[in-house]
């Protein structure tokens, strides 16, 4: 009887969580390193997204990066970041290291509130704590400030922490993982279908980027948008593409997704903001 119980418990725990985040990370990395081994792509190369695996589009991208379309936005973001609120304080007062070189630590699990906090979320929390109105989530000033903060973090390696002994944190992680692997929308496609199973293949004329390294270069200036957008803006676009209803930016669902998605890029350098088609 006792043994039966133990067995049952083992079984249940293995169903609830088949693999640990650490194991997931190793498998995730190995999958892509293996898939693109012939092209000689190294872990850190994945920071360049699709351009790490597609030589043809890389050339035109390199030309774009010579006169980066996001350069003005970084300057504007810096000005916004340094301009005092009406109470005289600045954004620097809300962040560790005065907000410099910290991009790689986001998102993180906050045990006090049991929330996953993103950088954009804390930018708005900082504003509200100082009596200012929050900014809109997906583009505009928030993307510029985020771009400046990413810029000061360039070269730091993604370092998202999943506290393994905290069941609440694991819940957030598992929710994000589920979003990534679950088929959705009328077209019945998961993020993993396109950015893992079919990574490197062409969907129409577009080469599909690997999900490994996806987050390192956000926010991104997209020529299609004509301006800078946050990661959650992109999530919305990719949800809509499969005819699924997008979730609101900074919703629990997208923060959970960002938590999983960013953890999978641990060890890869921050190189945001980036430029994309």
């Amino acid at each position, binding site marked *: 009887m006792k043994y039966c119980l133990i067995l049952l418990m083992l079984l249940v725990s293995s169903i609830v969580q088949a693999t640990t985040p650490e194991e997931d990370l190793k498998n995730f990395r190995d999958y892509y390193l293996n898939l693109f081994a012939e092209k000689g792509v190294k872990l850190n190369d994945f920071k360049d997204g699709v351009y790490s695996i597609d030589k043809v589009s890389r050339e035109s991208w390199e030309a774009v990066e010579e006169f980066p379309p996001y350069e003005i936005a970084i300057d504007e973001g810096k000005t916004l970041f340094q301009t005092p609120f009406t109470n005289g304080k600045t954004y620097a007062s809300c962040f560790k290291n005065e907000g410099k070189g910290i991009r790689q630590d986001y998102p993180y699990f906050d045990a006090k509130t049991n929330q996953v906090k993103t950088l954009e979320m804390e930018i708005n929390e900082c504003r509200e704590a100082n009596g200012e109105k929050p900014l809109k989530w997906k583009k505009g000033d928030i993307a510029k400030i985020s771009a400046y903060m990413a810029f000061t973090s360039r070269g730091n390696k993604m370092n998202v922490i999943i506290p393994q002994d905290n069941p609440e944190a694991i819940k957030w992680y598992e929710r994000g993982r589920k979003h990534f692997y679950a088929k959705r929308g*009328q*077209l*019945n*496609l998961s993020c993993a279908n396109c950015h893992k199973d079919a990574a490197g*293949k*062409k969907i*129409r*004329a577009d080469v599909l980027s690997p999900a490994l390294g996806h987050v390192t270069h956000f926010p991104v200036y997209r020529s299609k948008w004509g301006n800078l957008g946050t990661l959650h803006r992109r999530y919305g676009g990719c949800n809509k593409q499969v005819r699924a209803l997008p979730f609101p930016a900074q919703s629990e669902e997208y923060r959970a997704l960002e938590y999983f998605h960013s953890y999978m890029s641990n060890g890869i350098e921050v190189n945001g903001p980036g430029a994309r088609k």
Partner: protein
Amino acid sequence: MQRIKKVLVASSLSVIIGTGAMLTSNVMADASKESSDIEAMIAEGKKIAFNRKKGNCLACHEIKGGVLPGNIGPILISIKARFPDKSKLREQIWDASIAKPDTIMVPFGRHKVLTEDEIDKVVEFIYSL
């Protein structure tokens, strides 16, 4: 024992044929029509298959006559040799997960991306490749 096996085989066959007949009922009805009707269906099927808001098959397949194809799925060619049984082809398009549970091909019929009538036309077009 032998007999039981036979009965089993026969009954499972009839199940397969049964569902096959269900899937092909429209197609079979069409087969009796004039060949000019078939030509018209093929032409319409091609439009539906290439339309980005409808089949958008070119997103994943290279198909003769289509531009900017993707390469997630195989080139659609010599289809009659690949699918001697037209109902199997219809099944692949209606719900590819029947043949391959972990497929990434869109379940055009099961998810009502295309109507049954549109699927019949696409089947005629693909079958002509």
